[in-house]
């Protein structure tokens, strides 16, 4: 994308301003989206996005600039802005030699997704949308989108790295709305991966459309969820959003390095129930959150975060590594060139435990089963979180009873980790987009079925 000699010149130029570290991140991305509403293809969009950002680190502080022109002239103009902010344009003469770095292919692409015609992409999506619509008369609206993208990323830095990574993403999303005229309820199906269009050979869109429709119809007939403290069983897959939000973010260097995380200085201490072991693993083959090369030119790694309740490591990027005096874990990520990188998650999950799912249900007399979770957010300072339950059921005498809607789970990350007291042996992953200071990136959340012994459920106090 950018010639090695040009990168060497630019990096030398930035270092000459007095920076300790200089880095070029460039990308060339194509994306194609089709969307369907009311059974018709409504929109089809194509985008080409090219740009580059240059970062300098001096001490523990950083300067970042970017633009859309990745020619030598364009990059030099961006580099000058960085130099101005670091300390002015100094004498050049530094000799930078970059070494081409080859990263393993962990998300192979057989069918380049942007080579697939708009027509074929639209037809596949419509199969799912039509299946959702015909599921029930109560399904009043179905919207769907199929988004594919393919980007080449280049990182060159003053550590000598000159590496590239190809990242293709494909994802389908079907949303069904059930209505009785007075109220609407929705259901959703949205799997995806880092890889080629061949992924869709493994996903039955008809089954997916029906899944979304069933969820919407079930929730339309659900009563309101009672509020109060209770035992909650969370399903696997997207149930892992609780760990992602309530714990994952607080284990990112961004939060830890500045002393703003509840897990600061807790290395080697018990921060979770002994049943909890958790990883962030960017090296998983063909997974939505995987990256071969970090957005700082490092190799992605599998990080043991928590082992049997004991805090083992954080997710650390280069700047976090300098600030914390700990080695980087290859966790620097960003949405695109318009963001400086920071420590982020990849595929983050609670590992499978030894409990059996049936024993977990049998253990709860009165509680809530959060079969599928919606999104959530967390206050990084206090650890307070809030998650919506997309599909929930009451549990009575150890059995799944009637569906309930409007439930949210509320608590503090540090407390809920201690209260995860049963963990089943069937871990699954689910796809999400995670937003933070370096933009929105694909991440997987995951967990087995778990029991949280005592958590506040927000719902209807009168139900």
């Amino acid at each position: 994308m950018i010639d090695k000699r040009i990168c060497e010149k630019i990096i030398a130029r930035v270092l000459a301003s007095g920076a300790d570290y200089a880095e070029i991140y460039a990308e060339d991305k194509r994306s194609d989206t089709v969307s369907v509403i009311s059974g018709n293809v409504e929109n089809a969009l194509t985008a080409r996005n090219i740009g580059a950002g240059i970062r300098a680190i001096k001490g523990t502080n950083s300067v970042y600039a970017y633009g859309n022109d990745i020619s030598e002239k364009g990059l030099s103009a961006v580099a000058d802005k960085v130099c101005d902010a670091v300390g002015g344009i100094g004498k050049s003469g530094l000799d930078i030699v970059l070494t081409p770095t080859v990263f393993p292919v962990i998300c192979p692409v057989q069918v380049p997704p942007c080579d697939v015609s708009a027509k074929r992409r639209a037809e596949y999506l419509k199969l799912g949308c039509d299946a959702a619509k015909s599921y029930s008369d109560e399904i009043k609206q179905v919207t769907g989108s199929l988004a594919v993208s393919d980007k080449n990323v280049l990182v060159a830095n003053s550590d000598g790295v000159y590496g590239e990574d190809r990242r293709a993403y494909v994802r389908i999303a079907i949303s069904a709305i059930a209505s009785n005229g007075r109220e609407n309820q929705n259901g959703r199906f949205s799997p995806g991966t880092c890889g080629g269009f061949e992924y869709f050979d493994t996903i039955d869109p008809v089954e997916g459309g029906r899944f979304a429709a069933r969820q919407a119809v079930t929730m339309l007939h659900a009563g309101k969820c009672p509020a109060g403290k209770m035992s909650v069983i969370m399903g696997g897959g997207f149930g892992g959003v609780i760990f992602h939000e309530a714990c994952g973010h607080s284990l990112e260097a961004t939060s830890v390095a500045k002393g703003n995380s509840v897990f600061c200085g807790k290395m080697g201490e018990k921060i979770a129930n002994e049943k909890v072991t958790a990883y962030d693993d960017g090296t998983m083959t063909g997974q939505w959150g995987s990256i071969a090369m970090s957005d700082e030119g490092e190799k992605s790694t599998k990080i043991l975060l928590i082992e049997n309740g004991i805090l083992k490591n954080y997710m650390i990027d280069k700047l976090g590594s300098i600030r914390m005096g700990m080695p980087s874990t290859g966790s620097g990520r960003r949405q695109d060139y318009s963001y400086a990188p920071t420590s982020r998650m990849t595929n983050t999950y609670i590992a499978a435990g030894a409990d059996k799912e049936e024993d977990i249900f049998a253990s709860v007399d009165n509680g809530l089963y959060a079969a599928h979770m919606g999104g959530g957010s967390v206050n990084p300072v206090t650890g307070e979180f809030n998650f919506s339950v997309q599909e929930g059921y009451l549990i009575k005498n150890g059995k799944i009873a009637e569906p309930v809607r409007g439930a949210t789970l509320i608590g503090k990350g540090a407390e809920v980790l201690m209260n995860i007291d049963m963990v089943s042996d069937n871990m699954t992953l689910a796809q999400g987009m995670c937003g933070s200071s370096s933009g929105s990136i694909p991440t997987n959340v995951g967990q087995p079925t778990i029991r949280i012994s005592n958590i506040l459920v927000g719902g209807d106090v009168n139900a």
Partner: protein
Amino acid sequence: MLKNGIIAFAKEIDRISAEKQGLEYEIYATWGDSFQVKVISGEIDNYSVHDFIGISLRVKTDGKMGYASTTSYDVGGAEELIEKAIENARVIESPDEQFIYHGDKEYPTPKTVDSSLASVSASEKIELAKQMEKYALEYDEKIIRTMGSYVISQNSSRMIKNSSGLDVSEDFGFIAAYVIPIAKIGDDMNSGFAYTAGFNIDSLDIKSAAEESANEAIRFCGAGSCEGGSLKTIIEARAVCDLLSTFSGIFSSECTQKGLSLLVNKEGEKIASECVTITDEPTADFSFGSRGFDDEGVASRKITVIENGVLKSLLYNLKTANKAGCESTASASKASYSSAVAISFSNFCLKAGTLTRDELMEKAENGIMLTSLEGLHAGANAATGDFSLSAQGILIKNGKPDRAVTGITVSGNVYDLLKNIEAVGCDVYANPFGDVISCPSILLSEPMPIAAEGE
């Protein structure tokens, strides 16, 4: 320089489309530059500057519209962009009629740029961020540090040129500053946030904003919970902004036409209490949502959405207005240059009343004033109107503010809430970031269900 490049690119698109038997097209371009500095402990933690450009092309062929966009104005890419947009247009099945707009006779020209902003140097902005952090730290010894003190500024331009002769553009420039102080009392920590923003540096009041954010950090630090139950509720202006902007889509004709809003066929009906008047105000000078034309090039005007509780008009773009047999309300909007045209408010205004916040509390007698609502992107369902959110607030006892509470959850439905507004305050909070919105505090007639951990 960027503008000249875009104009040359537009000429090339025009030339190629003329060769294709007068292909109808529209070019939508944005460009500009921005600046951001983050200061922590008096030092520059992060400094970021950039230029940006985005060009989106829409073409209409056989009545269908296809999109393609690029970040490069290299004329060599024009042909491919057109081909991509045509390929996309060919898969469209929606029967809705699409429009490339011929333009209006006159356009309002709200002031959206203050020329003095361009001459503010980077070092002045850095100094401002440092000073703002200092104000926050000096406010109280309970403020132990900040998560950052920020100054951001941006100049941007927007241009629409099309095959029907439309050629409009406008510029926008703003500066904003905010700080996130952290308060520590015993083992408890809490953060606060308040901003100041304007069109020139003199309009910023960094001292007041810093003190307000420090005060918020302290006020809720170590705050306990309360007993759950149904409580008489005031929602403070800032939380009203967050709540209503999350649900502003219910007023979009696109959502009603697709069955995604429950306001279908409700125009002319009473859908809110008497004291509710909501307008969209895109033409005020030096207002964050102001624009002379919408994202299809239709001239902006003030729209009354709800007047004294009656739904007067939904928001329309050219497509949905044609479908409904009315005129566009100039509400066409793109999430970014590369997005498809959709619909949104440009400047959502809930009309203020006469009561001060103290008077609202007196009226409430006993209950709670919610000051912030968290988890709106997760716990609020735009399709259903339901919300269930974690919240912070101040208990109200005998008409006076009592103690701060946190760790509570409120739930309700926005359609019901609009009907249950008993009074609106005179204290307007304006949120200029993201969806531009300004609202006063509101007092609800029906008690709100609140789940809490107990004291």
